[in-house]
């Protein structure tokens, strides 16, 4: 038997007493650890690659602004409906009041809501694009998002411009209760009008698209398309595992799974998004 090794030094104070601020860490903004393959990447390299991993092609979450930059010709676009703000009509309080949640989100991001609507040209095709931003209360669907989609549809009909929604959302905003549930009805009603006007509607599902969003407009595109590996589903994986008491198989509820089961028209790599959309918009127009 081996003798327990004698320590060379003696610990005088127990525990770690370096405060979080004093901790030596790699400074932010130089390296990024890929959320897919965990390899370290230079942030500049990642940015050049449109926030997709050059090793495993993992698509990192990006902001609404990033999509506008990727899609619009010369990055030129004009924003609409910035005057709309959420309202805590129910005075909803959980661990935090909804009012505070809204104000915190506004303060911590450069956003006013979880969705932004822009009009610009994609490969020469004037398009109305409504993109969600996950940083704002998880991209949740509330009255403002419902209203923005509704007005964006009116705009698309008026200008006879194709309509694109980029979804990235955990679902309906619970703090607006029945009001948020009814946004599923509202957006569907407006999409019916858009369909009547024969204006194309493309739904791009990105990671993640779940809950009420996936059970309304996100699944109702003339074309439903998605980014690789995106989590797409009605019930979240945790809820399903809790209900069925079984572990979910690998790849369950990914974009690839949805494509295989017949719910997507195609999967598109972010680096080819603009090109592919341009192709589709041109074909629909001819």
């Amino acid at each position: 038997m081996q003798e327990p090794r004698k320590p060379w030094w003696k610990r005088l104070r127990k525990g770690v007493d370096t405060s979080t601020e004093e901790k030596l860490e790699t400074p932010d903004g130089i390296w990024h650890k890929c959320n897919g393959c965990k390899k370290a990447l230079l942030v500049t390299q990642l940015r050049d690659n449109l926030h997709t991993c050059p090793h495993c092609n993992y698509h990192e979450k990006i902001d609404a602004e990033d999509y506008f930059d990727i899609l619009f010709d010369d990055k030129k676009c004009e924003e609409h409906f910035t005057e709309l703000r959420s309202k805590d009509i129910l005075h909803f309080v959980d661990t935090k009041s909804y009012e505070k949640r809204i104000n915190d989100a506004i303060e911590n991001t450069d956003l006013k809501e979880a969705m932004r609507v822009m009009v610009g040209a994609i490969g020469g095709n004037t398009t109305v694009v409504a993109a969600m931003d996950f940083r704002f209360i998880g991209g949740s669907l509330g009255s403002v998002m419902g209203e923005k989609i509704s007005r964006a549809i009116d705009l698309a009909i008026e200008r006879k411009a194709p309509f694109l929604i980029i979804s990235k959302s955990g679902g309906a905003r619970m703090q607006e209760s029945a009001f948020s549930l009814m946004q599923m009805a509202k957006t569907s009603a407006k999409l019916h009008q858009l369909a009547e006007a024969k204006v194309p509607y493309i739904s791009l599902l990105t990671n993640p698209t779940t809950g009420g969003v996936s059970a309304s407009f996100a699944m109702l595109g003339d074309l439903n398309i998605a980014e690789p590996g995106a989590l797409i589903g009605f019930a979240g994986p945790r809820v399903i595992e809790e209900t069925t008491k079984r572990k979910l198989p690998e790849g369950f509820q990914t974009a690839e799974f949805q494509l295989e089961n017949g719910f997507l028209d195609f999967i598109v790599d972010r680096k080819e998004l603009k090109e592919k959309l341009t192709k589709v918009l041109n074909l629909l127009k001819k």
Partner: protein
Amino acid sequence: MIFLEFEKPIEDLYAQIEELRQMEQKTGMTMADKIERLEHKIKDTREELYSKLTTWQRIQVSRHPERPYTQFYSNYLCNDFVELYGDRTFRDDKAIIGGFGDLNGQTVMFIGHQKGHNTKMRQYRNFGMPYPEGYRKALRLMKLAEKFNKPIVTLIDTPGAYPGEDAEQRGQGEAIARNLIEMVSLKVPVLCIVIGEGASGGALGIGIGDKLLMLENTWFSVISPESCASILWRSWDFKEKAAVALQPTPQELLKYGIIDEIVKEPIGGAHLQPEEMAKTLKKTIIKHLAELTKIDPQTRIENRIKKYSAIGQFETVNV
């Protein structure tokens, strides 16, 4: 009789009556007076309790195991109710049922969630949680009604669409979404009534129409109080708090303009006098269908779109 937690005072009074009855049998003495007095007291207590139900109590009533479900109403309300099965694609879902029936001389398509009254039937009905094929069956029946120009009545009572592996695989989200957009443009009158639980997309999937009514002791919300508590408070223990925060009762939703009317229940809940409940419901349905039938289809659809487009609460600031 099954008593809810808050009905304990009523349960005690019933126990007292039972005791008196047994004593009557044993001793041969008549206790009719006393029993009558207790029966009055039960009535008063019930009225008292039900006149000021809390949100959580109302939710309990909506989930009462003896509550009447779609099958009871469609059979009681209609002559010659004929149930129709299947989505024509995959299978017949047991958590949503539907069929034609004669309601007061007018053929009506009834579609609704169905729960079971005992363990075996509850499982058979999957606790009122439909799979995608349930929503697709509902849509098939709605299109059938539209083809033959028959009004549609949907009865909503679900804890939510089933969150399972195979349900996801077959497109739970797509099935619900499809119903939302298709129901908006149905050319026939569509009357939706919450008869029990109205949870989330699972409820809305058969809940788009010209009018949305709720029975008095029901709820309708974006999420069940339990799930809401588990997400926002990270524990089911906060379900009563979540229930209050969600404001899911008909009384609150009427105030916010989300629903059109509350249908009164017998005192003590629909389960206490199901036939009374059915009679009230029948009158209500006939009244609304008569009004809706007067409107021409195109206007009806436009009104529907206008109604849904107007729902939402937000502020407009100067930018």
